[in-house]
């Protein structure tokens, strides 16, 4: 499996994602510039965290107009896996690949800390190595991670099991329904505020994020559902 890591001006978790995939998981990963117009040859796309375009205007708002984004949209429409982490999640919502939006944290401050999460949906290509309702711990690091969607959208997300991760002990940012990560209806585009790539090595004190990557790399047959 060959994974594209999209690099926007201001992305800064690109290296972390690369190291998690390459050094830790032994996967083939490659940086792809926002200026590129093709994703040919890639089997999965990941959009890393950071401050694309300085988070000016709204997080992810300007990045979504890059050359590469129509290609990411096509890639997603073809049912191939797309993962957006933190700023990547924000970009996916701005691009309309995921519903809703991410607002300023209720506490108005940037927060970097480990949060408890429940895996709400373990039947996605990214989470099928977790147990249903498993409690895991992943770091967050964001100022704008408060998930918002209108009532009907929220109801639909819940009804269709599109909420993948939920904050468990404490809601750090005011997200509606304690949402930390959601997947699209077809089950191939995941956006999450917590950083699984920061939790893949025992040396750094946490390996709870590793299975997001190993699940995808193992490709446990869940894509068949994604491709309608």
């Amino acid at each position, binding site marked *: 499996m060959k994974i594209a890591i999209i690099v926007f*001006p*201001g992305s*800064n*978790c690109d*290296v*972390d994602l690369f*190291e*998690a995939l390459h*050094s830790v998981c032994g996967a083939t990963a490659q940086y792809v510039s926002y200026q590129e117009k093709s994703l040919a040859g890639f089997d999965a796309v990941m959009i890393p*965290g*950071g*401050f694309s*375009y*300085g*988070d*000016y205007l709204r997080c992810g708002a300007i990045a979504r107009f890059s050359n590469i984004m129509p290609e990411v949209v096509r890639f997603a429409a073809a049912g191939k896996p797309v993962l957006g982490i933190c700023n990547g999640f924000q970009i996916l919502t701005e691009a309309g690949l995921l519903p809703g939006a991410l607002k300023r944290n209720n506490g108005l*401050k*940037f*927060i*970097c*800390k480990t949060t408890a999460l429940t895996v709400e949906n373990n039947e996605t290509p990214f989470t099928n190595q977790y147990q249903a309702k498993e409690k895991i711990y992943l*770091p967050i*690091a964001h*100022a704008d991670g408060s998930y918002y969607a209108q009532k009907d959208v929220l109801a639909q997300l819940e009804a269709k099991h599109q909420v993948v991760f939920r904050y468990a002990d404490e809601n750090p940012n005011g997200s509606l329904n304690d949402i930390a990560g959601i997947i699209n209806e077809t089950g191939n585009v995941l956006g999450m505020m917590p*950083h699984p*790539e*920061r939790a*893949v*090595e025992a*040396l*750094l*004190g946490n390996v709870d994020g590793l299975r997001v990557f190993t699940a995808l790399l193992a490709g446990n047959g869940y894509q068949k559902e994604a491709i309608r």
Partner: protein
Amino acid sequence: MTVELEMSPQEIKEKKPYLEWGLSEKEYDYIAQKLLGRLPNYTETGLFAVMWSEHCSYKKSKAVLREFPNKNARVLQGPGEGAGIIDIGDGQGIVFKAESHNHPSAVEPYAGAATGVGGIIRDIFSMGARPIALLDSLHFGEIKDSRTKYLINEVVAGIGGYGNCMGIPTVGGEMTFDECYADNPLVNAMCVGIIEQSEMQKGQAKGVGNAVMYVGAKTGRDGIHGATFASTDFSDEKETQRSAVQVGDPFMEKLLLEACLLLTSKHQDWLVGIQDMGAAGLVSSSCEMASKAGSGMTLDLDNVPQREDGMSAYEIMLSESQERMLLCVRAGFEKQVQELFHNFGLDAVVIGRVTEEKNYLLRHRGEIVTDIPVTSLTDDVLEESSREKKPARMLAQSRKPAWHPGKLVVAATLRKMLQQPTIASKKSFTETYDSQVRTNTVVGPGSDAAVIRIRQTNKAIAITTDGNGRLVYLDPFVGGKIAVLEAATNLVASGATPLAITDCLNFGDPNDPEVYWELHQAVKGMAAACRQLDTPVISGNVSLYNESNGTAIYPTPMVGMVGLLTDVHQYLTPTVKQVGSQLFLVGETGNDFAGTEIQKMLTGQLSGSLNDFSLTTTVQRLAKLLQANQAGLLESAHDLSEGGLAVALVEMTLHSQLGLSLAVPFAGEQLFSETPGRFVVSVAPQKVAAFKQLLGTDAVLLGEVTAKRELALKYQDGTAVLDLEEAKKLWEEAIPCLMKSKD
């Protein structure tokens, strides 16, 4: 914007506007008579004023700084460049420097702190290094009035705002609170980078005909006279006259960082030298680059990218707009460099050339606005000798009997002490810093030092910032020794061998002989400790005139120290690990109460003289502890600092579910004594014999780790029991509670 009509050279001579810019009459006369042999024009006078300011020339502190050791076999680059470099083997180096942004932060705390961070990051990547960590050292007034709370919130937000956006983790630092910093907070930031030794850069402009290129953000009227402003003390009156505040753009700097590193790592053949534009912007970067290489330079100011209309030569040269760098590019490669920067969406413009003649020639709107010898700005500064006098308060103190807390109710005292802001948890602030980005942070904020893994090797570095103005105030020499020693003990407690330091010397007005004496003595003390530890000073920064309305801060030298772990897995944290492990106190405890947290808490003021101590003995102790750790004998370690043994013991349990049962061989109040150079370590039962043999009488067994969540203490004149869950709560909630309280 109105274009100011500039004074003629004759008018300058008569009206003496330079006095307000910080140039003395003696200096002006020297420039006119000895250096130029004519009257300097408006622009030239401005250049001299800013380049000869303390901030750029160190004219007052230079003599003192020479006392610092700055070489050993590991030093690849000492003071004099953007940052110092130290060899860590495998062809790699660690690059680091600290810088103060006290005055800008007092005026505009968010932007001041943010641009302080931005500036120190540029110093690191101007050397060709990838920044890998940030630390800070912050000193504020007591958390009681809304102004202080505002300053704290904004400064912390500014530091986080810049570092987080850059993707450089803020991994540690220190924060203290004392009324002396209320109007003059100290905001020091340190940046650490990693470099391939083959890619080391210098800020030099050599090779006749080579291009001087400007890259990055456009120039505006920001912070004009910022550098000279930093060199004169504040009074409320001046505060209203300040010039435009510099605003940072970390997004721009992130692009600049990536572009510059691409240039320095992949295109060394295009590049001759690189330097950031920091204090005194274009003038200081360009003339330093020329003077270091013994070159001349001409600049065409019309080519400087400008954000505002009608800027004068003076304004263009002195602007402190952020996120700009100056390059010297080999003739013929200008296009390639331009293209490289354009790919990042950045301006890159040829603004001048290196010349044969040794003069500094500036053209603006068809006129020559400056024509002076390059070295006159950088090398001919009149160094000022200063008068020194031991402060009267010290003489008075030495005649008084030493302060002693008397018999204490230990548990109650300890509970109260855990709530002192200087000791209480800083998590509510450090949590707003991204401490993990780059995924190399093995130990982040909240331990003795941060530990950062070096990828592709088995190594790690440990980093800490320390300073204790209270001790330096009572005795600058001994306090200076302790400042360096405390940094070293923090590294050793993290498992690292200290390598080198950077510093920020935050002092008052050096024209006051007592302040100058403090500066000199503190540097002597720091230098002595550095020599004993073999940790040279490879970079640093001086911030003088830290006074407001005539009252100086405590003299507060900040030490930033970097250490090496040859095996990352040997890192240590203070947290105890398992029931049954034995706790040892390493180092002797005396009656050291002058300038301590207990003195401040109980009396509200500082008094007394510090007891001097032997650096030789202490440094030998550090070496033994490192040896013990390398032999795998230590499970956890913590050095003792503010609050003494009592506080350290609680800190070792805060992040565990365990307790301690101990008996200490001295009186209750001595639990709060702050004798420097001490540690507590925990040792697994099967390692105790080997540990005892190695440490000998230097280590005293205190007791063991228990499963009960309490600190049970026996001491010579009593016993105490502290509920650790309660203690943790007090420690965690103290600062959030103070920050929320109404005035």
